[in-house]
């Protein structure tokens, strides 16, 4: 007997296998983003669907290594010592949470920051000389 209609079989998304935000790209280590082929929206991390237009035509992209510090805090609880973290607005209007490194330029909202990588650790630090 042939069914008159076919229902879609929805598939689970293996999102636990694509956890890391740091990836290797031709230009070097970069934060992993996902770009929508339909509307062009770029998002942080590995996604299979666009949160704007719900298209599944998305692809893995390297996010810019530079951005602007939106805000930050120095955490004193739940960590050894003090941990500076902040929200970075990357140059393609993607916001990411990130560990921060203190440098010669004091942290404050609005300063330009750049991605740094040491092993599998990544962070943002004030752009030197700014």
């Amino acid at each position: 007997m042939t069914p008159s209609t076919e229902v879609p079989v929805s598939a689970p998304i293996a999102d636990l296998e694509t956890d890391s935000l740091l990836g290797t790209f031709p230009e070097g280590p970069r934060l992993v983003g996902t770009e929508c082929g339909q509307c062009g929206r770029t998002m942080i991390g590995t996604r299979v669907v666009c949160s704007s237009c719900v298209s599944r035509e998305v692809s893995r992209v390297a996010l810019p290594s530079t951005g602007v510090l939106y805000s930050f805090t120095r955490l004193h609880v739940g960590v050894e010592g003090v941990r500076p973290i902040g929200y970075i607005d990357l140059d393609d209007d993607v916001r990411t949470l990130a560990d921060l490194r203190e440098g010669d330029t004091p942290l404050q909202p609005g300063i330009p920051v750049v991605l740094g990588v040491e092993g599998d650790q990544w962070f943002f630090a004030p752009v030197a000389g700014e």
Partner: protein
Amino acid sequence: MTENVFVISAAMIPFGKHRSSSYVGLGVSPLIDALQGAGIQKSDVDAVYVGHSYGGMMTGQRITKEIGLGTVPTVNVDNACSSGATAMHEAWTAINQGLIDVAVVIGVEKLTQFGGGALPLSPEDREVKQGLIMPAVYAMRATRYLYESEATVEDLARVSVKARRHGALNPFAQFRKEVTVEEVLAARPVADPLTLLMCCPTGDGAAVVVLASERARARLGAPNGMRVAASVLHSGQVEEGFRDMTKPEISYQSARDAYAQAGIGPEDLDMIELHDAFSIAELVYYEAFGLTEKHSAVALLRDGRTTFGGDVVVNPSGGLLAKGHPVGASGVAQIAEAFWQLTDQAGARQIEDARWALTHVTGGGTAGLDHGACTIHIFEAA
């Protein structure tokens, strides 16, 4: 045709570290006291709505079975800090739509089970995996707010000072000792610029309110109580890029909808119980509720316009900062405070001739969202 809904009684236990009490131990007494206050029997109850985030399976049924309140639907609701107020919204909806006549709303939480520290968030969340905790979210909100506005770290301390002054008058508050600006600033740093005294405490609590339709209130000979003039629930909307953390849109939108539903404006309010989980939140929410323009909240605070004797008393109970914040209980406890204020039973902290009250809780901790949930209620003395 929709029904008018009334809160006809309220009860709660003082918030605090009740290490010897389970969720059942926290919830049963206020449940009995709320039914008694309404002058009704358990057989008069059509449904029970229970807000909690960490109570585990069947928290509501575990509490209600202790007094043999069964058979009727019991709905357990999780919406983080909005859990209790979401339970309230569901109960209001059912009565407002004429589906039921009498509902019990329970908010309950036991945070001492975690042994202190920041609230445990979902380990599945991207930013939680990166180590984000709620104090850090509000600290970044504060850093940006201080950067953009005239506000100073002393203003953040002033919010805590006001909360403690109000809490000192409230027998239900976890903290009843006043503090000074100097003490707040000198307290242990948690997440700069927030010190420990700018963060709500860890504690346990339970609060219960009873709701009734107008006809049930008459049939049961229940107290007049207060009318629910608005009940609004919003969810956060994802933003992948820039977000203005000083303008939490979910609270702006909820307030706009609540005022429209109630047919009043911010100038009509006599009191507000708002979600001051961290002191920066209070300033941001003055603006979200239209008490003042964006970035100008500190003027209201410094001039005493949001304390007793001012235009509108914000957090007469002491708020989350002083009364405490057992997550799922907070939304219902705010409604209990509004009930006591609008029925002239608030004792030493009574606001004279209080007629209109607004209560507000959010629920946060999800990457890409301002907050996960926001609930606003407006009440009118009946």
